[in-house]
C-alpha cells in the first residue's frame, strides 16, 4: 500500500504558516487560517491534480481562506484586519540599518495585495506567472503590485538616499558582492 499523498501537506506547513503570518500580520490569526487550510486541503484533496504544483495549490487555498475570513470579519464586526495590522507598524529607527523585524513591520504596512505579491515572488520562490495564477489576476497586475511594493518598502525603510548599511551578515555579503 502506498503512503497517503496528503501526508505531503505536512512538508508545506512552515511555508504556509510563513505566508499566513505575512498576510495577516498576526500569528494567532495566521494559525487559524493555516488550520482551516489544512482541513480544506485534506477533505478536498481529490481536486488536486497529481503532477501539478502542490505548494501552489495549498497557497491558493490559504489565500482564499484568508480573504474569506477577512470579508467575514468586515461583515460581522465592521472591522478591517488591515487596521489591526497597522497598529503593529512602527517606523524603523533612523540609523539606516535594516533589521528583520523592521522589514516585517514595513511589510505589514503595505496593502495586502502588494504584500502577497512581493512575498510570493520575492520570498516564496514563485514566478510572476505562478503568482498571477495563484492570485487570479493578470501577469501585468502582479508585476505592477510587486513594483509598487518595492517602491513603498524602499520609502518606508528609507534606503533611497544615502549609503545602504545592513546589520545582517548575510545581507552584508550580498551588498558587498554587488559593489
Amino acid at each position, binding site marked *: 500500500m502506498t503512503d497517503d499523498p496528503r501526508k505531503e501537506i505536512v512538508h508545506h506547513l512552515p511555508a504556509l*504558516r510563513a505566508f499566513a503570518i505575512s498576510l495577516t500580520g498576526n500569528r494567532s490569526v495566521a494559525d487559524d487560517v493555516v488550520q482551516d487550510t489544512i482541513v480544506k486541503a485534506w477533505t478536498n484533496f481529490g481536486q488536486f491534480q497529481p503532477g501539478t504544483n502542490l505548494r501552489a495549490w495549498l497557497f491558493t487555498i490559504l489565500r482564499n481562506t484568508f480573504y474569506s475570513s477577512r470579508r467575514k470579519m468586515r461583515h460581522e464586526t465592521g472591522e478591517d484586519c488591515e487596521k489591526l495590522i497597522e497598529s503593529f507598524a512602527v517606523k524603523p529607527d533612523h540609523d539606516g540599518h535594516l533589521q528583520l523585524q523592521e522589514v516585517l513591520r514595513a511589510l505589514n504596512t503595505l496593502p495586502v495585495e502588494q504584500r502577497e505579491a512581493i*512575498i510570493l515572488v520575492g520570498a516564496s520562490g514563485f514566478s510572476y506567472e505562478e503568482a498571477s495564477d495563484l492570485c487570479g489576476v493578470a501577469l501585468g497586475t502582479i508585476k505592477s503590485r510587486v513594483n509598487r511594493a518595492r517602491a513603498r518598502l524602499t520609502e518606508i525603510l528609507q534606503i533611497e538616499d544615502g549609503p545602504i548599511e545592513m546589520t545582517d551578515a*548575510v545581507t552584508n555579503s550580498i551588498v558587498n558582492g554587488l559593489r
Partner: protein
Amino acid sequence: MSNDQTDNRQDRVETLIDENIKLAFDSLLQEDIPERFKIVIAMLEAQESSDKGQSQ
C-alpha cells in the same frame, strides 16, 4: 547622476528589498510548527477511518 547610475542604484535597492524580504520570510520558516496542526491532521485521519468503518 547619469541614467546608468540611477538604474544601477535602482537595481541594487530592488535586490536589497527582495533579499531582506527573503530573509524575513526565511526567519518565519524557521519557527516551530504549532502542535495543533498535527493534531488536526490526526483527527482528520481518525475521522476518515471511523467513516470507512461505519460504511463497511
